[in-house]
């Protein structure tokens, strides 16, 4: 007899060939050398300063980018929340719309804007201010990352905040809380699920990005993504690339685990 469950078979095939086997493939390549013999050298390659420094630098930039996004998005969420649920559709529309312009182009636009002779500097000079010379520096890379990933921080936070029952806020006021305490005791803890997913959706891509650093770093800034891309596409070793990727994933997992721990502690430390 025909089984309804078997309808999922094509999908399972896709999961196997497109997710499970590829992940095992990375694991395999990371553990063997060119001739197929077992080795730990690929994983150990991360100890090479040429790899280690970009990894740590990526972590740093991703952390800074995530922190800035959070600091920008949380107050925005608070403000948009109060402007009423009726405008929800329009706010989301405004946040999603920029994504219909290719993100590489939008990043390149920053390169145009930030150039020594670019628009921003022209305006700064016109009002008598000094030029902003951040293009091809880590500052420009962070700016690009914040720009690209800010919507992914705003959307989940906003989505969670708009759902917080306003009577909870009123109840806190009713019990004597000041606006700051309402924010700290009620809105912040109840926004935590949104903040967590926002942080995840910002941290992982900024940690592993290579295009932004390539475009706005002018080739001077090497992040872990650039190293991996080089190993795979610019005549490096796939085995070393796989090994570094494995280590990078471990770092991401550790960061996420830490984040979850902070979340749990945060939930307890409400009052």
């Amino acid at each position: 007899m025909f089984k309804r469950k078997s309808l999922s078979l094509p999908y399972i095939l896709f999961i196997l060939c497109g997710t499970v086997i590829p992940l095992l493939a990375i694991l395999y390549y990371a553990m063997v050398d060119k001739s197929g013999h077992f080795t730990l050298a690929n994983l150990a390659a991360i100890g090479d300063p040429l790899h280690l420094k970009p990894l740590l630098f990526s972590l740093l930039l991703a952390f800074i980018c995530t922190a800035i996004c959070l600091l920008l998005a949380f107050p925005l969420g608070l403000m948009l929340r109060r402007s009423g649920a009726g405008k929800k559709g329009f706010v989301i529309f405004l946040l999603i719309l920029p994504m219909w312009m290719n993100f590489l182009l939008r990043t390149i636009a920053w390169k145009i804007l930030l150039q020594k002779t670019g628009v921003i500097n022209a305006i700064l000079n016109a009002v008598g201010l000094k030029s902003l010379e951040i293009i091809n520096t880590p500052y420009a890379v962070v700016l690009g990352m914040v720009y690209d990933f800010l919507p992914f921080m705003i959307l989940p936070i906003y989505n969670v905040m708009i759902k917080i029952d306003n009577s909870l806020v009123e109840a806190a006021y009713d019990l004597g809380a000041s606006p700051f305490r309402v924010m700290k005791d009620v809105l912040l803890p109840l926004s935590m699920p949104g903040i967590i997913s926002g942080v995840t959706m910002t941290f992982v891509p900024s940690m592993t990005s290579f295009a932004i650093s390539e475009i706005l770093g002018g080739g001077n800034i090497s992040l872990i993504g650039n190293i991996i891309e080089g190993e795979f596409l610019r005549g490096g070793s796939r085995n070393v690339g796989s090994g570094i990727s494995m280590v990078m994933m471990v770092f991401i997992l550790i960061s996420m685990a830490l984040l979850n721990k902070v979340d749990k502690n945060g939930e307890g430390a409400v009052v």
Partner: protein
Amino acid sequence: MGNILELVNISKSFDGELILDELNLDVKENTFMTLLGPSGCGKTTTLRIIGGFTTPDEGRVLFEGRDITNLPPNKRQLNTVFQKYALFPHMSVGENIAYGLKISGKSKTYIDDKIKYALKLVNMDGYANRDVSQLSGGQQQRIAIARAIVNEPKVLLLDEPLGALDLKLRQDMQYELIRLKNELGITFIYVTHDQEEALTMSDTVVVMNQGYIQQMGTPESIYNEPENAFVATFIGDSNILSGLMLQDKLVRICGVNFICVDTGFGVNKPVDVVIRPEDVILDEPGMGQLDGVVTHLIFKGVHYEMEVMAGDFEWLVQSTEMHAVGEAVSLRVVPDNIQIMNKPESEDEEAVVIDV
């Protein structure tokens, strides 16, 4: 007893729609006052203005004689029990109750004692460490009340707090609330659309409709002496008939003269007459004041409900005695049970009946 709270000429509109129109209301100390009315009558807006969540367009709110119109809710000595409880989902029961006390900087021992006391008061001993989400609706309601009263407010505002509970639980909670009110000795202002709830619990009932106070008084006076057709239909079932006041204590309804007790309406003046269905007595044909025929019959448990066609009017009658459909009967009403009301003078006062 003085007024603890006074609303003076309060007006409020939302999106151009007038919700409250120059409302005046005095609340006496240590009373259980209920704002009763259909949805959209302005009762919740009134409560929110008292609580400080809504600012009136015009008018003042006085608390113990002091103007608090522009005081934010966190600075008011009032506490609210919200319609859907509004318990903080990320805090335990104890933390919820403690919240207001922590804000006002009370000591840990004081807070712990208060939590215990409050939980005992609402019959929830030993629930302090429970998760809010584990509680049933009725239990959440009790915690919401406990959270409000530990702050020792002088006035407790309750916004349809029993609306989400089932009938049995609601009746139990009504007794609980009366008991709490008596033990705490503070003023309760209670909002509901349920007339039975209002009559059961209140010292004073304020019937509202379309932003106006229709009538204010004890539950007995509201029920027995409704001042207009709206109050009469909103509070319980009633027969509202057009009548002619022939002279003091004599009214003509359906072509028959009835003796009543009301005076001062003048001579030959058109009036509305309210007769409660349980006050209509059915008799053998010819024995009463007005003959008719039973047209509908429903068994309601405590009584039978019948409709009787008599004098061109469909009378609603409640009686413990059954009369079958088609049976000829006669109606009788004792003078005390005939309530005379002025006819509405303007459109605004026209009786609006909204099913709730």
